[in-house]
């Protein structure tokens, strides 16, 4: 096989591999989800933002501040805490929505019952 033919064959192989790689990337079922996730991280929000400990502290009652772990990652526990907080707050403001008053606006959650 002369040099030209060999070179041509090598170029064909490279093109074929490149095409295959592109095709596999295109057919990747996770691609739309990754693209969507990239779109949904808003621009301008710094990756190293306020920090999850600060976020958790914001939702804590004043007397509880300082008791949260120093470095809480945005893990499932924190997410569950956030979700629970949102649901609790919605339940607490439900009365205000139907009967607005200062009392119903600042209604606090009852502490859990304890057995003695």
């Amino acid at each position, binding site marked *: 096989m002369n040099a030209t033919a060999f070179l041509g064959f090598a170029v064909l192989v490279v093109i074929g591999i490149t095409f295959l790689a592109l095709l596999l990337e295109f057919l990747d079922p996770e691609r739309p989800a990754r693209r969507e996730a990239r779109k*949904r*991280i808003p621009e301008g929000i710094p990756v190293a933002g306020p920090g*999850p400990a600060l976020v958790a502290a914001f939702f804590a*009652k*004043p007397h509880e501040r300082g008791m949260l772990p120093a470095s809480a990652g*945005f893990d499932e526990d924190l997410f569950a805490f*956030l979700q629970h907080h949102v649901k609790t707050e919605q339940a607490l*403001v439900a009365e205000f*929505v139907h009967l607005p008053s200062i009392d119903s*606006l600042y209604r606090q959650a009852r502490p859990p019952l304890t057995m003695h």
Partner: protein
Amino acid sequence: MDVLLDRGALFEGLNEEGARRLSEIAIRRTVKAGEYLFFLGDNADRLYVVTSGNMELCFPIPIGGDVKDVAVESVGVGQALGWSALVKPYRFTLSARATRPSEVVGFSRRDLLDLFDTEPAAGCAFFTRISEVVGLRLLTFQAMWVRELQRALEAEAQRQKGTGA
């Protein structure tokens, strides 16, 4: 379609012809559990009504490069979601996903407005109900925001008291 035309639902007051036209403009869609119907920021040109299953509305919170969707409202059978399709700038302000296999019926803004042009009484009832849905969302979030503001101010006041500032 019976779910949509039940007494007290969005399309109360439609006569037979109106109900027939409503069926014609309805687009059914199946949504798998965990699948999103629309995302916050998407172009909103269609109002949806849940006909089976359950949807939840959520907003994304980005933390450290990771984005989590926090559920803020549950939408059950007969209830509407996507009223942003009727309110400028016609962009969804929350994301919607199915909590279990669900079916929704979508109505485009243009088709609805055309229908209510010829059925003004039904249109009036429809927009009255939509305004109730919108008002409920506004009041809920307004109250939640004021409560968080109060907590933040109280914490700051205690901090200042503690530092003697």
